[in-house]
């Protein structure tokens, strides 16, 4: 059956927007279509991609997580702190001197634990996701300041730095990591029981519950994974900068939500995909890169990004109405 052109437009809006931007920038900026520039774009979006994969799962359940930026900052700071200074246990008279691998695990555990707290606050205490994760945003920022005393932790060494600044087969490690996460979570979302439950909870929590899905457990899993993925983003960022900045990740939650929405995931849950989010991240990355190449003022860049997000949500609403 032939699909009406309006439906095609709505269905492939993100892809069409990306192709349109690429064509325009390739024609206007000779440097845009170079390998180095594309490697740069992919490197730039790798952190946002980690956050956005988790955010997609959360938004698919009908939730939202405003704390991913703060979790990113704290996870990176904890990893950097234990790697650089170790962890003193005065009661036992010993200090744990972490290896780079240990620091990575510590950072991820911090992200998972904070994400789990979000899930518990939302399911056990019945807090709206917006409120629970807003609280976690503040807690995460405060804990980061306490852990770092407000100073960056620098000089983390080449082994740890490999995560963010290293190369494998000529491609930056950060791109490999985010690509691997895309593949893993695409499979989780599309071909696993958890994935089906996530869509079911987002589509209709009540119906999912009546069908025997433990909706609370699904939500706790999703927020925990969201925290863990934010931690991976934090580790990449910290390794790339060779420093854990106490203010790292400030405002990243908005970029992540924007990528998910632009990628076609419905804010009301139940509809969207990891592939769409990858497109959303690419659109934001290409837009940022293009605006810089076109020498647009940073102030206008913010305005333009805001307009793109509004347009994406408006198109999404139009699509939903039609359905």
């Amino acid at each position, binding site marked *: 059956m032939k699909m009406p052109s309006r439906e095609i437009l709505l269905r492939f809006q993100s892809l069409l927007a990306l192709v349109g931007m690429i064509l325009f920038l390739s024609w206007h900026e000779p440097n845009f279509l170079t390998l180095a520039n594309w490697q740069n774009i992919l490197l730039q979006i790798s952190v946002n991609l980690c956050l956005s994969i988790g955010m997609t799962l959360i938004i698919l359940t009908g939730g939202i997580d405003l704390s991913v930026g703060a979790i990113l900052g704290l996870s990176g700071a904890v990893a950097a702190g234990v790697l650089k200074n*170790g962890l003193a246990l005065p009661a036992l008279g010993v*200090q*744990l*001197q*972490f290896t780079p*691998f240990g620091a990575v695990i*510590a950072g991820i555990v911090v992200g998972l634990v904070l994400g789990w707290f979000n899930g518990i606050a939302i399911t056990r205490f019945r807090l709206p996701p917006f409120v629970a994760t807003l609280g976690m945003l503040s807690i995460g920022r405060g804990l980061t300041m306490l852990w770092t005393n407000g100073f960056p932790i620098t*000089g983390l060494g080449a082994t740890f730095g490999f995560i963010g600044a290293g190369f494998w087969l000529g491609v930056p490690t950060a791109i490999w990591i985010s690509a691997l996460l895309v593949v893993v979570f695409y499979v989780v979302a599309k071909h696993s029981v958890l994935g089906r439950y996530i869509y079911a909870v987002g589509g209709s929590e009540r119906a999912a519950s009546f069908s025997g899905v433990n909706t609370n457990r699904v939500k706790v899993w999703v927020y925990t994974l969201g925290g863990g993925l934010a931690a991976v983003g934090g580790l990449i960022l910290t390794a790339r900068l060779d420093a854990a900045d106490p203010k790292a990740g400030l405002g990243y939650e908005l970029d992540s939500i924007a990528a998910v929405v632009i990628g076609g995931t419905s804010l009301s849950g139940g509809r969207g995909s990891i592939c769409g989010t990858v497109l959303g991240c690419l659109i934001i990355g290409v837009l940022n890169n293009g605006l810089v190449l076109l020498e647009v003022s940073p102030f206008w860049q913010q305005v333009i990004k805001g307009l793109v997000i509004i347009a994406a949500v408006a198109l999404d609403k139009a699509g939903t109405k039609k359905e």
Partner: protein
Amino acid sequence: MKRVLGWFIVAVVVAVIFWRFPLFRVVSLQEAAAAKATKTFNATEFAEGFWNTRLMQSLERAVSAEKLLTGIRNNPADAKKNFGRTLGVSESYTFFVAGHGRVVAANEDEVQLVVSEGATEAEVSLQVGLLFNSAVRDGTGLLNVSDYPNSQDFNAISEALNRIIEERVQPPLREQAQVGRIVRFVGCAEVNHEETDLKPLKIVPIQASVE
């Protein structure tokens, strides 16, 4: 039973990974403190060594104050290009300069000199108050930021060099510099704002003698 076996296998795999790639090493607090002390960068010690060996032996590399001031008067951009040094992408720049001049004014913070023949207005201001800038660290070109693992260590070097100057160079200069006397100096100037920092040229003295 199947589930327990599954968890058991996962636990064994995790244990093997952590055994092969340990997460941390346990050391006593005393051992950790000793290791940290040897690893910690001692900026004061470094600055002392740098001052005595490298800096004092490089003073003859400083550009003549008269030449520099003439250059600044004629074309500040060319003077910056020919004699200045910029750190990274900073807009500030430094000069490493040596010369002599007659004291025309002196107070607790600066000793003002005229350097050129016939000049009446102060052309150079030797800084004898508290020092906050990085003129000496950056001005000589002997220290490179990329040689240090982090910017905190690099900043600490500047602070330590400034403390040496405050303790050894400034007090005798402040005491002896009286209007009319001749001061011979070697020092570094940091220019952040050309309108205020070039006229007079604010120099942090590394060596100064009053005749």
